[in-house]
């Protein structure tokens, strides 16, 4: 039949060719796989096909970490069984407390990578119980609502350890420290650095080691009072997600 190309001329009505609007949900879902989760959610109101496709299990499964089963086991005592993958993702994106509230773990909502935060309560700090040296302060500036405040000491060591089924990838470890004490005056944040001294004498040393033998050391001088700074300790690489990785780190401002 010679008319096979008739409906590809410019005069063809719009409805005669399939547009994105006619793509079946499975095709739309294939497209969504290549977008990041916040974008997928934004597109869910576009039209019916997008709405359906945006809750497709295989789309969200591709966003979850590969070993999300192990992560769930580690993080939750009981996890609802019949959740769709999207809800699992959402649940993991919330900061979930583990290890008795001393740590929080969550997925970054855009990239789906694991983030873990350890509270000062979960760290072994030299002489932490001695009120001459340390105090625990309640504050809004920490996601754990409390920080350890050092009054004075000659030297100290902060040790931490965590064991977690990290999905494969490269991870960075940071210590979050601030010189000076923050407070609020007349509703504004002020930082009192009157009593900050001695930090410039010697740099602080950070160390990190993993159960499979990786190590990292870094040093830096703390000299910027008044703000919370993330000091990069080092990176470690997780290759095998089925094994849990134990990380030891410490901060030794001698």
């Amino acid at each position: 039949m010679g008319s096979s190309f008739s409906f590809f001329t410019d005069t063809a009505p719009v409805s005669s060719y399939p547009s994105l609007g006619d793509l079946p949900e499975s095709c739309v879902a294939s497209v969504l796989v290549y977008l990041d989760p916040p974008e997928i959610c934004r597109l869910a109101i576009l039209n019916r096909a997008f709405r359906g496709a945006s809750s497709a299990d295989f789309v969200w499964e591709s966003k979850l970490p590969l070993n999300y089963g192990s992560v769930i086991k580690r993080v939750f005592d009981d996890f609802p069984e019949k959740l769709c993958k999207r809800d699992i993702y959402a649940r993991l994106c919330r900061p979930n407390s583990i290890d008795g509230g001393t740590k929080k773990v969550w997925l970054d909502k855009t990239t789906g990578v694991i983030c873990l935060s350890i509270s000062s309560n979960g760290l072994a700090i030299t002489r932490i119980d001695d009120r001459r040296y340390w105090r625990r302060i309640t504050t809004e500036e920490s996601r754990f609502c409390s920080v350890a405040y050092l009054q004075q000491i000659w030297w100290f060591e902060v040790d931490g350890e965590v064991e977690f089924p990290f999905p494969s990838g490269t991870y960075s470890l940071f210590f979050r420290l601030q010189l000076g004490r923050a407070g609020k005056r007349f509703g504004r944040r002020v930082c009192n650095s009157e009593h900050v001294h001695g930090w410039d004498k010697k740099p602080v040393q950070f160390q990190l080691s993993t159960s499979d033998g990786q190590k990292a050391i870094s040093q830096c001088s703390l000299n910027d009072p008044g703000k919370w700074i993330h000091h990069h300790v080092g990176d470690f690489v997780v290759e095998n997600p089925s094994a849990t990785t134990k990380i030891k780190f410490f901060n030794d401002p001698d």
Partner: protein
Amino acid sequence: MSEGPMAIVKPEMKSYIWLQTADGSIQQVEEEVAMFCPMICREVLQTGMGSSKNYAISLPQRVNPAILGLILDYCRFHQVPGRSNKERKTFDEKFIRLDTKKLCELTSAADSLQLRPLVDLTSRALARMIEGKTPEEIRETFHLPDDLTEEEKLEPLRNMTDDPRIRLLNRLYARKRKELKDREKMKNIEIEEEHVDERSVDDLLSYINGGDGDSKGGRANKNKKKNRRKKDQPRNSSSNYENGNHKNGEVDDVSSPSKFSKFQASASAIFSPKLDFDDGDIDDELDPAMKEELDREVEDFARRLNSVWPERMHDILSLGQERRLAPISMNGNGSLQRCTGDELADWQFTTPLTHPRRAK
């Protein structure tokens, strides 16, 4: 040579497979090229079709001749085993430089032929085009119908994990749905207002014709009665609507004439943000103080959500009509809030919300 169902294949001849597209046209394609498509491959192996013109394999409807040509080009290149990855990648990049219309057709056709690598390739290209665009832009570029009704966009979310933020969001949706309905009601009331006026004129006339002295007094009376009804009516009707609304997914018939026959449009009665009847089935039996607090929480949440997406101001909920009446007066200052690191679920899985309409 007789043309039986099985053509005799001579070893030195190339084998061809016959394909028929939905428009009836038939082509013959080199066997190794056609067999690269899983769907065709399966047809040949399972049914034996495709070996001659009379027994051409019918391709799915989504494959038209021009697109088939493109697909076969793709297959012809990739089925050659000796190509390097770099060559393949270069070919692919050139191959998908198509307009959006062709890309969509290609995705659709490749999907129906189960040609996964091509589906992935085109999907990735489409995703790149969609990325970063607003819904309006996407609708324009791809000619997408906006086929979700406003109610559907506001359907409550299933909260399987009892996420407090989803609970708040659902409450917000319920409130927005109610606003929608109220606005619809107002439209109907305006139509009905004429009746109200007529009646009062008639009454007036009858008064004038009947007893002279009472005309003014009578009218005042009537108005008072109407005013009183004003305050009572919206509550009752809202709750009716509210209860009618919470069947899952059912869209209420908003256009049905309301029970407000004598309703005088009064902004404050209907559009009060302190709705006493909120979420009939979510929070039963809450006392008003608690409801007020919930309302405040919900408004606060809405503000936070809206500050995260300032661009969503113009989205679904700006049914932004030209009401002469006072608009809904929720906390109308869209000041951006500082989002702490913990605002992780400020985006939800369906509708982002617009800022409530400000006073015009």
